[in-house]
């Protein structure tokens, strides 16, 4: 038992390597920050295409649904391996784009950004869609019967209501995303897990890995609590007889 604590909870090892692991963790946070912005946008685009009405857009809708389903059905690890191993071979793409070193970040960073954005865009599209579909159909019909165009009805009536239902599930996706940034270790991005496993290889002690886990906890635990608060607040709004906050 003491062997177990020595192997995983050696605070001396944690202290000695704290700054290295923290530096790795900042890579996770940076990756998260870039991906979350791109994925929120990409997801919204996907969700809106999916809602487009009429026969004219049927092929586009079909493609979008296929994309969302397939990207959610493949392990992210495989997508990352495919992107980091495959894109450099696409010689019709200029080398600076094929093997990007933008803003001082190495190519594994950008491959991870691309992979995670593609996948999390699909996940987040589903969250947007759930929000849009949760708005009662009568709202849309009423807006249309008042003479609003499809776009106007979506923009002024449906989307503003949908947005109130989205924060909690979206925050859940973000928590998952932050954790999934560790998958970038497979393409040799020096993030917290890779750094701490490197320390493990040198010191034969796993405590740095636990330290990395603790750093994630500091962010993800309060975020999980916030999800609960958001859910409660939303419920209060829609529960009959509840006090409704304005604004």
């Amino acid at each position, binding site marked *: 038992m003491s*062997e177990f604590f020595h*192997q995983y909870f050696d605070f001396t090892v944690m202290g000695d390597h704290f700054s290295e692991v923290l530096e790795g963790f900042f890579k996770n946070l940076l990756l998260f920050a870039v991906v979350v912005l791109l994925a929120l946008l990409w997801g919204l685009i996907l969700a809106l295409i999916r809602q487009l009405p009429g026969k004219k857009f049927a092929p586009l809708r079909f493609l979008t649904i296929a994309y969302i389903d397939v990207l959610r059905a493949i392990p992210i690890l495989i997508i990352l391996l495919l992107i980091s*191993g495959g894109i*450099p071979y696409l010689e019709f793409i200029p080398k600076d784009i094929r093997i990007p070193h933008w803003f001082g970040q190495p*190519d594994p960073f950008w491959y991870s950004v691309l992979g995670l954005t593609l996948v999390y865009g699909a996940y987040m599209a589903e969250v947007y869609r759930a929000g849009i579909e949760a708005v009662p159909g009568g709202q849309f019909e009423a807006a249309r019967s008042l003479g609003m165009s499809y776009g106007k009805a979506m923009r002024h009536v449906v989307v503003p209501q949908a947005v109130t239902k989205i924060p909690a599930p979206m925050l859940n996706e973000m928590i998952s995303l932050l954790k999934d940034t560790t998958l970038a270790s497979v393409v*040799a991005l020096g993030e917290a897990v*890779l750094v701490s*496993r490197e320390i*493990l290889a040198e010191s*034969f002690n796993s405590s740095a890995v636990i330290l990395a886990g603790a750093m994630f906890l500091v962010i993800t635990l309060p975020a999980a609590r916030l999800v609960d608060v958001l859910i409660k607040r939303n419920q209060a709004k829609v529960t009959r007889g509840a006090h409704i906050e304005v604004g």
Partner: protein
Amino acid sequence: MKKTRLAAIFAVLLLALASVAVAGCGGGGDSTSSGGGGGETSSESGGGEPLSVGSDIPYPPFEQGKPGNYTGFDIELMEAIAEKMGRKAEFQDTSFETIFRDVAQGKFEAVISAATITEEREQAVDFSNPYYLSEQAVLVKEGSDIKSLKDLDGKTVAAQQGTTGLELAKEELGGSEIRPYPEGPDAVNALKAGTVEGVIIDAPVAQNAVEKSGGVEIAEKVPTEETYGIAVAQGETELLEEINKALKEVEQEGTYKTIYEKWFHLEPPKEIESETHEAE
């Protein structure tokens, strides 16, 4: 309605089936590892019980192949050694970074995984006599301007996590961006894809990459005076003696030479037979 319910039942059944299959595999793995734990006592008698051996597969040509059908220099050598001990080697694929911890904890009895004998590692495990003398190779793209290790300084360089190649890169290439990949072939792939300009890896692995994958060449071989050993948990003196004795027999009978030539297309170095390793 009925249709969707049927589909749902089908999906649930499918998932259940998959999880049972997975649990079955997991159970198999567990039984071999618990055999490893029990092996502590049985190794004294050496009475035909399987010898559980950990190895990080793939690392061709040392270890390669699919579960149940592993092969390679290490694998065949270990099989020959185990046979001399009157036991049958059973291999477990495991990750190199945790391999020494795992053998120390008794997850398996021995490790053969192209593992260089180092002082650091000897603090965690005991090593057999060396069974292989190794060099590090600087692997580059065919026709590259890089002709030596020094030429790589300032370039992007790949190596495998937890290996001596990575240590060498860190020591010698202060100006480089060094990328530790989880597996050796990942590093070679990154070289072929052009995202790194050199890979520092064990010479035989580099040689194998040159032969099998093409498009890459060895720019320089760096002698490291490294030797590979079979690792066992500390204090397993009897098991270690048995392994050393068996290794010697395998070498004297010429089996070692046969296996060496089969996998490296080279004669084994003369020193390997005279080399003796001081076990601490």
